[in-house]
């Protein structure tokens, strides 16, 4: 008989044919390895909300890699502003684009006013349905939102659907059919994850990151810290374990990976840096110096060193 130590730890990784332990799933990647999976012209779903818990170290890696003609689908924040400023964004599909403390993303404003990017704008709730439809692999979910507003004029590709059921007066209500988003790769940032890609949020709101993870063909998760699976409950209740690894193709340990957006409880938004970033939308010299100082860094670590050295310089 084969000798196996019968412990909980061992028995889930035993191959009876080869009579040896099977390695436990390990999906740890670097930012560069993630970005190598992203091609020109792809549609990228980005988790978070406005300037909150955005996978910025992955966005910076996309900028470094110079991937072109991207479409971004998100409750938009600086990822849309940055990628439009660098000229890598072809199209944005969004519920809004905001930096929260700065209500309108300033680079997005410029991109829109100069016609630099295509835009598909949804009602915020309708956007949720497009994401959920993609996660659930149905072609659409219906909503009343958009009727009467200019959302339909702005997006002539949107269609109505008639309820097959009459209401009490015999009428068949017409609703807006929000089409499932077609996302190639989703990027999300979590507070904690294990090496298999099980994700944990410790802040006030998961936002829609689970749906982004489900909706895409591939999903990559960055996180503040990779912990052992058995330590996932050290900092949050079971309800915070909301993205199972089956929806995650790779996980990147990126401390301060959401900078300059907020990632509570690990850190708040770097408002000063965000203001610095925002100011570059109105001044090409400022943008050029911002770009060369922060975006031409060769890693997330070096980016952080530049951010921190600025504080020290003051």
């Amino acid at each position: 008989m084969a000798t196996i130590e019968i412990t909980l730890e061992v028995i889930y990784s035993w191959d009876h044919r080869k009579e040896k332990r099977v390695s436990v799933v390990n999906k740890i990647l670097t930012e560069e390895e993630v970005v190598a999976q992203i091609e020109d012209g792809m549609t990228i779903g980005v988790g978070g909300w406005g300037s909150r818990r955005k996978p910025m170290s992955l966005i910076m890696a996309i900028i470094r890699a110079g991937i072109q003609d991207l479409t971004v689908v998100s409750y938009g924040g600086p990822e849309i502003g940055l990628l439009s400023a660098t000229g890598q964004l072809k199209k944005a599909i969004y519920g809004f684009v905001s930096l929260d403390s700065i209500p309108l993303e300033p680079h997005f404003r410029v991109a829109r006013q100069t016609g630099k990017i295509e835009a598909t704008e949804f009602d915020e709730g309708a956007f949720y349905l497009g994401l959920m439809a993609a996660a659930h692999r149905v072609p659409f979910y219906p909503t009343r939102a958009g009727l009467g507003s200019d959302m339909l004029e702005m997006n002539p590709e949107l269609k109505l659907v008639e309820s097959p059921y009459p209401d009490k007066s015999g009428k068949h209500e017409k609703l807006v059919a929000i089409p499932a988003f077609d996302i190639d790769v989703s990027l999300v940032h979590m507070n904690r994850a294990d090496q298999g890609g099980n994700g944990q949020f410790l802040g006030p709101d998961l936002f829609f990151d689970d749906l982004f993870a489900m909706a895409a063909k591939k999903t990559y998760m960055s996180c503040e810290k990779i912990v052992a699976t058995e330590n996932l409950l050290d900092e949050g209740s079971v309800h915070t374990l909301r993205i199972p690894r089956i929806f995650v193709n790779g996980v990147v340990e990126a401390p301060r990976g959401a900078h300059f957006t907020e990632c509570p409880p690990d850190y708040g938004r770097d408002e000063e840096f965000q203001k610095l970033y925002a100011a570059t939308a109105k001044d090409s010299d400022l943008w050029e110096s911002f770009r060369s100082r922060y975006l031409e860094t060769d890693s997330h670590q070096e980016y952080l060193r530049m951010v921190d050295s600025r504080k020290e310089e003051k």
Partner: protein
Amino acid sequence: MRRSDICIAEIAECFRGESDILCNPIGISPIIGGRLAKATFAPDVVMTDAVSVLATNTLPIGDQDAPRVIESYAPYRTIFDILWSGRRHVMMGATQIDQYGNQNIAAIGGFQKPKAQLLGLRGAPGNLINHRTSYWVPNHTKRSFVSKVDVVSGPGYDRMGEIGEPGNRYHDLHRVVSNLGVFDFDTPDRRMRLRSIHPGVEVAEVVENTDFEIVIPDNLELSRVPSEAELEIIKIIDPTELRYSEVQDA
């Protein structure tokens, strides 16, 4: 009495009679007014802490560290659930609003290539078609009270009339509060009506600053002045006087 405090009392009045709904004002004066309503005559509404919980107690605006008595969890997903359920009354801003209450916060100069990109549609299309909505306009001019909005974010009564039954059955554009007065749509043809005028404002001032014909009732009332007790509460909600930066005195 400063104009801002009158505005805030009238914003609060928008929520009088509400209970068991999410009172969800957006923006400085609306949040102060909504919290005033909850702190006084509308204690049964629920309100968020502007982050992710419903808080029973009255929170000072913008104070992230104020102790919260948490009633329930309200991440954005729950907010959309509540929105679609209809148990919500939102007060939004309006960069432009027309006589039927069509609101624009999306763009100036059309959507395709705007002269000025504004906030966007945000939740306005869904809000308006699902539950009661009020608006707040801190600078009442012909550029905000316009004959035609450039983009319709939140549809007004004419647009929703075209949609008709059953699509329009939850549409309920309640009031508009500006720095000059309070407006509603309680007219036969659902055009905007001056409901009350703020003390110190002349009707002519309203008319001159409005780019459409506004309905003026025969016996026009004055907007309500907050009581001293209310002013005390307003100071608790807005200790750093953010409200005065939003509304000019006469």
